[in-house]
């Protein structure tokens, strides 16, 4: 970098320490050349920075415990087959006889309901005859036919 100067090198040492490999890549070579050309200019700053670098180097690396690693891995995505297996197991618990019988039971219920419904007389629960059409039209407000009309007939 062409605008490298003494103050910039001192700023770099101030921020990144004495190890010039830690300097930003695009300024590293120019800074190193300047330091090597005039070492006395930077000796004091480098010495102070080295002491702090050495102190920071003592900070131990932190290693996750086996238990934490196992938990992190266990929380990871599951294969598609395993996901389907989980759904399958859930189905087996809820429908131990398989899904054929519940489906047959559902269809039978529908058939019985339809049969009973079709054979019922067209009479309301109040015991008065009324056609389905009358009630629907009245509910929609399309006729003057009311519930009272039917009750007091």
């Amino acid at each position, binding site marked *: 970098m062409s605008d490298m100067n003494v103050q910039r090198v001192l*700023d770099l040492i101030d*921020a990144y320490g004495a190890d010039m490999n*830690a300097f930003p890549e695009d300024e590293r070579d120019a800074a190193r050349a300047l330091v090597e050309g005039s070492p006395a200019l930077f000796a004091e700053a480098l010495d102070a*920075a080295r*002491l702090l670098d050495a*102190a920071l180097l003592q900070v131990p*690396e932190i290693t996750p415990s086996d238990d934490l*690693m196992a*938990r992190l*891995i266990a929380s990871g995505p599951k294969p598609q087959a395993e996901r389907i297996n989980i759904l399958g197991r859930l189905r087996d618990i809820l429908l131990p006889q398989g899904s054929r019988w519940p489906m047959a039971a559902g269809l039978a219920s529908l058939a019985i309901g339809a049969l009973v419904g079709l054979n019922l007389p067209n009479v309301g629960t109040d015991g008065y005859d009324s056609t389905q059409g009358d009630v629907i039209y009245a509910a929609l407000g399309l006729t003057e036919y009311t519930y009272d009309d039917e009750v007091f007939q």
Partner: protein
Amino acid sequence: MAFSSDLDQITRAAAGERGAVAALVARYSPGVLGLSQRMLADNAEAEDVTQETFLRAWKALPNWEPRANFSTWLHRVALNLCYDRLRKRRETTMAELPEQVDRDLRPDERLEQSQRISAIESAISALPERQAAALNLCAIEGHNQKDAAEIMEISQEALESLLARARRTLRKTGLTGARQGQ
């Protein structure tokens, strides 16, 4: 800190391949845990943050943008979770960090080393949180300026300023003098 095989492993991990999941955990959990532990100075909280970070990563994997840097993204999530927790703390408490000393030393040397490490860690965690984050990422975790700035979502100039202030503060605490035998 970026690995060329990341995308391949991300794709395989997203499909649930256990080996790829384990590889991502092995590669990135030490950095995430280390950053969290030094920011929060609390083992249990650091583990919680690490777990939460990876849970978010697993959710993000199916829609992963190939150009994104997994390491940067992961550390940014962890750092933001740390910031959230630090904000929630009314008082900063320095929890005991695990004792990590060299077993080959004599007992008195071991004690001295343990105290020195504890002093350094205390001094770092007492820094303002953004200064601590910058120092942890660059000086301890070894991220380059570009990655650290991206993780912190700041410019490289701002990162440099934070680093310089952090180092000046640490020098003032007498940390460097302590190492010389104080």
